[in-house]
Each structure stands twice: as C-alpha cells, then as structure tokens.
C-alpha cells in the first residue's frame, strides 16, 4: 500500500510525492491548501479530484466536477481505475502514478559521452579554448599576410567576423536545448564550437603541406571531405548535448548531414567541370621551401610527359 506521484508542472519542472499510507483511504488533489496533493496550477480547481484506495490495493480516480476536467492519457475521464505508470493530466499539470515496487533503471555512468560533453562547461575551459581559437586565428592571419596595410579596425573586424558566427549558432543550439531538455547548456555548446574551430584551423597545415609534396592528393574534394568530417563530429557532439534523441539517431544525423552536403558538392563539381573556361584550372599551389621535402624530376622527364597531356586535351574536345 502506497503511492508515488511524479508531478510535472507547466514549466516542465518535476517533483516526486510519496504517499506511504493514507489513513482515510482517500487522497484529495487540488489547488486549495488543505488538499493532500497541492497543485500550484491556475487551471486546476481548488478541489479538482480524489483518489480512492481500494481494499485490494487498487486506485480509483474521481473527478469532482472540475472546470477543465481530467484526462487519462488522451481520453477525458470522470471515474477511472489507475494502474502503475498511468498518466493523468489535470489542468496543465501532468501526474504519473507509480507503485512503490516500480522498477527503475540502473544509474547512468557519469562518464557517458553525453555527461562528459555536458560537464565540458567550466569557465576555465571556455577561457582556454577562446585563447586557443584566437591564437590559431592570429596564426592564420599572420601566415596569410602578404604585405597589405593593416589597421586595428580591420583586425578587429576579422576577429569579430570569425567569432560571431559560431557564437550565434551556439546560441541557437542553446535555445533548442532549453526547449527540448529544459536546460540551455550554453557553455558546453560554445566550448564544443570553439574546439571545432581550432581543429578546423589547425588540421589544414599538415594537410596542405602533405598535398604540396604529393600533388596526387592535392584535390579539392579531399579538403572538403576533411572539413565535413570535423563538421560531422561537431554536429554529433552538439546533438548529444541539446537533444534527448537515442544515441544511434544522433550518429545517423551526424553522419548523414555531411554525406548529403558532400554529395551536393560533388554534383556541383561534376556539373561545372564540363563548363568551358578560357582560364586553365591548374594546380598553382606554392609553399615556403621548408615545407618542400621532396626533390623534383629532370627537365627531360617533364618533357616526356607532354604527349600525355596532349592526349588528355584531345579527350576534352567535345
């Protein structure tokens, strides 16, 4: 004999009420202060309904002629029997009934990926990541500087431009998390975005260096593929934080979205590849001599490639 009620209010806050034994065999529910279960909901009547405990441990719910009525599941009810895990809605408040013998799930590990991501939310982490992101961006600007005149306003503009988009996107995710889970997780989301930004900035250096030395891998789509991989991981992490979707749904979304983007990219590339252009599209990549680790071929070897290029040109006449 006993009853546990999970009360979820309009604001999605939840509390558990435990009624071990009710002497009168009657549990009154309503907004009035002398009820057994007080519901602070303006859409609930002062004396809205009551639960009658039967001899054999059954629960019977009775509506007391309330203004807005009561619902079990989705059907309106006046009198009904309740079983464990049944849900009643009174006004805008949701009541779920449990028998004390109800089995609950074992504890979640504090080390699961969602928890780890959500606890990635300290200000010190944010600070470190922000400094890291600023440094990588500064490195990028430094390496790409080719002698133009610089002023503080321009630099400020570049930095603001670079950080405002991740910030806006994070804010949007955060709003989604607030709606879906009741908590915004803003810091965790921003931190994940900053981390993705740093990875995006940094991975290109080894990749470009490698591509320069081995022109065979110097293809545009490889770079796009790597970018999308980082994007997919970012999407997965953010989905874990912001939604309560099942793990494999998250994985599916995080995998599918970059794949779809990549396919669209390939379609555009292939459809524009046939377009006539007076300017040849050659590989003009040049990097500082320290990055060049390989030696070249002799001029004669290069001359011997020319017939092959003419053969290719013959193929490209349409």
């Amino acid at each position, binding site marked *: 004999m006993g009853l546990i009620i999970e009360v979820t209010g309009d604001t999605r806050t939840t509390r558990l009420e435990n009624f071990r034994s009710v002497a009168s065999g009657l549990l009154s529910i309503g907004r009035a202060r002398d009820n057994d279960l007080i519901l602070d909901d303006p859409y609930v009547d002062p004396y809205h309904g009551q639960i009658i405990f039967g001899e054999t441990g059954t629960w019977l719910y009775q509506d007391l002629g309330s203004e807005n009525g009561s619902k079990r599941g989705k059907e309106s009810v006046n009198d009904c029997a309740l079983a464990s895990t049944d849900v009643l809605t009174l006004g805008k408040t949701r009541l779920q009934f449990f028998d004390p013998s109800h089995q609950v799930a074992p504890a979640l590990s504090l080390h699961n990926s969602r928890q780890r991501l959500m606890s990635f939310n300290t200000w010190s982490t944010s600070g470190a990541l922000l400094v890291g992101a600023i440094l990588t961006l500064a490195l990028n600007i430094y390496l790409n500087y*080719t002698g133009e005149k610089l002023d503080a306003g321009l630099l400020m503009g570049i930095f603001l431009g670079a950080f405002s988009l991740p910030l806006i996107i994070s804010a949007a995710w955060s709003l989604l998390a607030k709606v879906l889970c009741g908590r915004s997780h803003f810091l965790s989301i921003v931190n994940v975005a900053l981390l993705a930004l740093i990875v995006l900035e940094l991975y290109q250096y080894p990749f470009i260096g490698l591509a320069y030395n081995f022109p065979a891998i110097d293809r545009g789509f490889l770079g796009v593929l790597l970018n999308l991989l980082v994007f997919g991981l970012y999407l997965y992490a953010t989905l874990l934080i912001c939604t309560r979707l099942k793990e494999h749904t998250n994985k599916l979304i995080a995998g599918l979205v970059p794949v779809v983007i990549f396919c669209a990219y390939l379609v555009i590339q292939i459809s524009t590849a046939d377009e006539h252009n*007076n300017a040849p599209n050659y*590989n*003009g990549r040049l990097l*500082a001599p320290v990055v*060049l680790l390989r030696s*070249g071929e002799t001029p004669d070897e290069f001359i011997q490639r020319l017939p092959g*290029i003419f053969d290719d*040109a013959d193929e*490209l006449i349409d």
Partner: protein
Amino acid sequence: MSLTTNPAPRCAISYPGLFALILGFCLSVGAHTAVALSAADARSTFELTHGAIYQIRVIDIAANNKSSTGSGFVIDSNGLIATNYHVVSNAVNTPGKYRIELLQNDESRVYIATVENVDVVNDLALLHVPELQGPVLPLAGAAVAQGDTAYAIGYPYDLGITVVPGTYNGLAPHSASDRVHFTGSLNPGMSGGPAFNNQGEVIGVNVASAGNQVSFLIPVQRLQSLYAGTSMGQQRDLKDTMRQQLVDNSARMIEQMLDGNWQLLPLGGAKALDEITGFLRCWGDSKNQQEQSDSKPFWAQRSCQTDHNIFVSPSLTTGKIELQFYWLESAELNSAQFYEHYEQIFSRFVPGNSGREEDLGRWACEDAFVNPAAEVTKAVFCARGYDAMPGLYDVLFLQGSVSRAQEAHIIHFTLAGTTRELAQKFTQRFIETGAW
C-alpha cells in the same frame, strides 16, 4: 563588318600640348596646296577604278537581310574578287546560314558569290562570281616608296563608295604577319577594299585601323601568292585549308623564334629572355612608388608578345605568342607570407587568345616539380585542342622557382594555334634556357 583586328595601342603616350601645335600647323599651312593636289589624284584614281570595286554583303538567309558588310575588288576576268577573310568568315564557318552578295553604288544588280579560297593568316579571301563582267584591277609589281601617296577605296558604314587619300609608310616593322602601315582613315566597312598607288595599281588590301589615321593594309604580294595558289573550280575543304595555314604559320613563327636571339638580360635579381625575334615586342614594368609604401613584395616583369591575333571567327582568335618573365622579392615578409603572395600570382595565368565552347576543347593540365640545375621549380603545362581543326592546340607553360625563401622567378609562355611537335620543341628550348 567592323574592322575587327585592331592591334591594341599599347603604351600610347601622348603629349597633348605638342599634338595641338602640330595639328594646328598642318591644318593651316597644308590645307590649300596638299588637298588640292591629292584631290585631283584621288578623283582620277576613283574614276579609273571604281567600276571594279564592290560592296560585299553577308546576308543572313533566314532574316533575308545583311548582317555585315565589307568591300572587295575584281582581280581576274573570270570573276575572282579579293576581300578580307574576316568580311566573309561567317559564310565560311556556317555556310548554311549566310550567303554572300556583291553590289555597286547604284545597287542596280546583285551578284551572288561563293568563297573560292582563303588565307586566314593574312586575312584574305577570294570570292567567285562566274557571270561578273567589267574592269579588272591591276596588281602592282613595283615597290612603293615610303611617303608616296596612296588611295584606299571602300564602302565605310554602308555610306556608299568612298575614297581616302593617305600615305604609304612601309611595312609595319614588328608585325606577326606582314602589314603595310597606311596613314589615313580606314573605317568599318572598308575592309577588303583596295588601296592604290598613283598609277592606279593595287598595292594592298584594307584590313584594320588603330585609330588616329593609323591604318593597316595587307601587302599585295600576299594577295598575289594566294591568287597564284588558287586554281579555279577545284573543290577545296576550306576548314582544312585554314587548319594547314595555321599550322604552317605557327611553324614559321616558332622556327623563327628558335633561330632568334636567346640571350638573357637582367630582370630584377634574375635573368630573362628579351625580344627573341622581330615580331615579339617586349614591355617592362615594376612596382611603382605609390605601392612601395606597403610591405608587398617588390616585382619587376617583362612581357613579350605578338602584335595581333589571327581572326578565325567572331568568337575565335588564335596565333598569339606571349612570353612573360616575373621577378619577385621581399625583405619584409617571411617565407610563408611571401609564398602566399607568390601563389596568388602563379595561379592566375591565362592565355592571350580565346574562343567559345564550340571552338575550343577544355584545358588539360599537369604539374610537377622540376629541377633545372641547382634550383627546384614547379612547372605547369596545359594544352587544349580545337574542335574543328584536329592537330591544333593552344599551349600554356608556367615555371616558377620554389627553392628560395624570399625571392622567386616565374617564366611563362603561351602559344596559340600550334602543333604538338612545335610546342614540344619550343618548351624544351625554353626550359633549357631557363634563366635559373
């Protein structure tokens, strides 16, 4: 038809004050005597010759009206008419869409002409009208001297037959194909018309104008060789004739370059080729004073090219040869920054001629690291074929040093309308000479 092949007036430095002075002088002093004299000669030349000069109209068959006009003249009693290739190029390239009509000032009779032969390199065409009667113009045998008066006749802007007196100024000295420099105003529509000496003999064919009385004629010798090589009534594949002419012309020019002067002259901290042969004219440039206030690398460049493209159709030009040398150095940028700038320059080379998708294939390119001597360079070679002219290619070659921290040297050439063998031969020589 407008006069299409305008040699770009590069580096046109003018001195307004001086110009006004000379102009005023000429007008006031020369007005009475010179004009009076040339008017008499112009009139007699006109009276002697105009019966053999026709307006050429290229008629769009579907629209049943003229789409372009030019001029032409009779050179043979069998009804052969000389004109510019560019006047009738539409009728050559799309014969089903156009027909060629000839008529004179009174527009009393219209003749239908067919294209008998063309010389695309020298921009000449011979048309045939079997039933044509009337006078034939004599082609000059003797040379004209610089300063002699010459008379160009044609139908400018559909305005009726017009005589333009001017001065013969010899062959343009650095032209890719022979051109007479004629000082007189040629205008659109006069293309293909004759120019006479004061005996009324044809000395050239009107072809192009660069404005301000600077005009060009095709020397009559070119017309004579085309005429001599044209036997009447012979079936000719004009496309293939043109292809062969372009191949021969490319061979002539590239052989002339290979026999030229391959001496290297300083360019910034490097050495580069200069005017290898007469038809390649070089111009130089370097970073200017205003730019020097920023920290961008210092650059100096030399660019050498032929003076005009060969007109094949309104959308396709070819025959251009360009050589370019670029020196870059920086003391202020570090190696990574310098190469970022260098890459931007290296990635933007384009050929000097152009065509539509219907005329040209797409580019095939390959790049590699090449080690000439002690230097490491990046070399790029691109080629594209011609749709209607098999065996003809545009070629773009690019080579830049990649082993020096803060300086670089780029060498580049484009050969438009050449063959595999010629391009290969030239590339080999170019890489060997190098300048590294």
